[in-house]
């Protein structure tokens, strides 16, 4: 692009030919007031507030900076006497229509207009048309338009009726300079859909996301609704946004795999006695974590659903874990995060009573027991006993809106009834729903709680029966972050040592298929738990990959032709052994 030179308020600047004047001034740090200018929308020059004086040779003109294309040799004055006088007049005219708009009043104050000569109008739309243009040009919904003529002109929807075409994107409200467009029921609507607060269509999932990249939410992005907008594409300097991207599947050849598919929290609704989902102030541990997060919907303020600061909070340990009805195992992480919650609550709300209901405190790690003792000193209440039920069965007015916890206190030997404002359920960690099929896919077995079994609990804690497949984290069983990190470290070094070896050690007792005897019946292929047997369509024969075979011999026992034989456990060898046992 051709560069030209011009002067603004006496400063010489370089700019591209035909670049809008307001952009050039902005780069120089010169503020030109404007109402109807928005960088994403084609300038229109309708509010006239950005009027400046342009001299070209002997010619002097008053122009709107937002849509005036600069040219070589011009001289611009943004705050000359004439400009100020003109602008004052424009603002007074605008006030004559919209006398009570804060932006205009602020401008009036800036330009020393105490009482506008033409009075103060009661409208609040300056008819800049930003909303109409954003709806048509950017969003493409074509809902808003100008109606009537002359002094009666106004912005509305067709026939002034609620439009079916409106996608409630809020673009019109966000561009409106006077704030005269509002969306009805916006707040409630959003919180009904997303109780944890709204997210923008483009967002970074959470602060610790890896990779920490912005994503576009398909459901709320305007482009996927109307095909319009794409403002982000224009704004993104890295040109990283592509709305036409599709989900693709990639096939990657790897030698080792680390299974680290994690866990899920038990559904709190399974425990009817605790009323999760029924009472809004009963949160799961993850809900509370979001609520307490500084990036969360309340900015880290601990408040009940109706925005009040709780005076008493109950934290219930072992919900669904160490419980014969749900999971017999201990979820391992709850005790410590429950203590953390109690500590954070005490830190944020000093006079809040925190009740921890526990079966046993399992503070098993380094510094954990000390932390527990510290909490005892901080004045957190610990009640040893399980909560029987949570209800809203209040006795009198003072308990209104509170949740009533009934629990046995085995230390005192009595049943306690404690009213609280909020309850946090430390729900059990569970294996992922598809843990079994995932494990099967990788030739691993799951235990009775659907956590993937390691090869040996002490001697091979990160390996699985499938060579080259390793496990780390909650997929193997409940564990806290330090344990997970340690396990992941062990798994990755096991993986590296396997890669470094360059050769794979195979089992001694692998099975082999004698090709001349194989009838190609397929029976063995489906039986193999390690997917080690491949059927070759062209030869109509099956073949065992000895690197994958673990030597269980299931295929050998099933082979009707006797083509499959296991090394050191051949049929003839076993028959000979039986003969030996029976002494025949």
């Amino acid at each position, binding site marked *: 692009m051709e560069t030209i030179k011009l002067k603004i308020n006496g400063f010489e600047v370089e700019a591209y030919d035909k670049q809008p004047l307001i952009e050039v001034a902005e780069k120089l740090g010169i503020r030109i007031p404007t109402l109807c200018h928005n960088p994403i929308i084609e300038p229109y020059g309708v509010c006239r507030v950005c009027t400046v004086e342009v001299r070209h040779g002997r010619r002097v003109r008053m122009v709107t900076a937002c849509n005036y294309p600069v040219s070589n040799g011009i001289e611009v004055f943004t705050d000359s006497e004439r400009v100020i006088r003109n602008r004052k007049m424009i603002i007074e005219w605008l006030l004559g229509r919209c006398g009570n708009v804060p932006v205009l009043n602020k401008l009036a104050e800036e330009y020393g207009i105490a009482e506008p000569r033409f009075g103060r109008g009661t409208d609040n739309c300056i008819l800049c048309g930003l909303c109409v243009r954003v709806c048509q040009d950017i969003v493409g919904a074509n809902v808003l338009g100008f109606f009537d003529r002359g002094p009666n002109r106004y912005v509305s929807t067709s026939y002034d009726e609620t439009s079916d075409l409106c996608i409630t994107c809020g673009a019109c409200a966000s561009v409106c300079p006077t704030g005269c467009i509002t969306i009805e029921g916006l707040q409630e609507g959003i919180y009904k859909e997303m109780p944890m607060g709204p997210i923008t269509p483009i967002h970074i999932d959470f602060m610790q996301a890896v990779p920490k990249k912005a994503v576009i939410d398909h459901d709320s992005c305007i482009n996927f609704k109307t095909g319009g907008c794409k403002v982000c594409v224009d704004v993104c300097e890295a040109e990283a946004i592509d709305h036409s991207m599709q989900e693709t599947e990639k096939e990657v050849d790897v030698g080792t795999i680390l299974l680290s598919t994690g866990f899920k929290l038990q559904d709190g609704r399974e425990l009817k006695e605790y009323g999760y989902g029924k009472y809004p102030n009963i949160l799961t541990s993850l809900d509370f974590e979001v609520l307490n997060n500084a990036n969360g919907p309340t900015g880290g303020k601990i408040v009940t659903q109706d925005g009040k600061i709780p005076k008493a909070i109950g934290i219930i340990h072992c919900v669904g874990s160490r419980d014969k009805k749900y999971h017999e195992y201990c979820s391992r992480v709850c005790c410590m995060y429950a203590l953390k919650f109690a500590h954070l609550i005490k830190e944020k709300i000093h006079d809040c009573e925190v009740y921890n209901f526990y079966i046993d405190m399992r503070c098993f790690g380094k510094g954990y027991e000390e932390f527990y003792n510290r909490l005892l000193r901080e004045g957190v209440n610990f009640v040893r006993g399980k909560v029987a039920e949570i209800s809203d069965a209040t006795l009198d007015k003072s308990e209104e809106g509170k949740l009533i916890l009934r629990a046995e206190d085995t230390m005192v030997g009595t049943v306690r009834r404690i009213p609280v404002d909020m309850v946090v359920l430390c729900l059990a960690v569970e294996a992922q729903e598809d843990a079994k099929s995932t494990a*099967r896919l990788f*030739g*691993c*077995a*799951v*235990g*009775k709680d659907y956590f993937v*079994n390691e090869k040996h609990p002490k001697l091979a804690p990160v390996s699985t*029966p499938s060579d080259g497949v390793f496990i780390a984290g909650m997929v193997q069983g409940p564990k806290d972050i330090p344990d997970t990190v340690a396990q992941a470290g062990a798994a990755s070094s096991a993986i590296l040592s396997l890669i470094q070896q360059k050769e794979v050690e195979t089992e001694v*007792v692998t099975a082999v298929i004698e090709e001349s005897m194989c009838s190609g019946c397929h029976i063995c292929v489906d*039986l193999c*738990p*390690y997917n080690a047997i491949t059927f070759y369509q062209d030869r109509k024969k099956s073949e065992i990959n000895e690197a994958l075979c*673990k*030597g*269980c*011999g*299931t295929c*050998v*026992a*099933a082979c009707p032709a006797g083509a499959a034989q*296991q090394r050191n*456990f051949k*049929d003839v060898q*076993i*028959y000979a*052994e*039986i*003969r030996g*046992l*029976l*002494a*025949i």
Partner: protein
Amino acid sequence: MSKSEFEPRIVALLCNWCTYTGADLAGTARMKYPPNVRTLRVMCSGRVDPAFVIFALQNGADGVMIGGCHIGDCHYAKGNYSSRRRAVILKDTLESLGIDPRRFRLEWISASEGDKFAEVIKKFTKELKELGPNPLNKGAQDA
């Protein structure tokens, strides 16, 4: 062995990872169980061809037992499932061959269940004593 009392011969095909180790544990823990059992190690209960069982019963065994890991605990993920499916059919087959299906047993005994191994052998021996010698046994009690 007194000639008056019948002592059955049991062939036990045990999986390397669970029942064989369990039997080992029964031994090292000095648990008492009848000496009638003769063990044979295979890598997995899934390796046991039903033909082995029939062969043993035809050739002098009074009872055959397959021992494997508990369902879901198989070292090879699912070998014992195959074993379990085969056992159901095998019992029918034994019956049609004229062999009492009670002479065949499939047991899940883990490596830590030495006591269960001893218990199972005791029970099986007692049952076989009640059943008497295997009719296919050609009267060869002295072997």
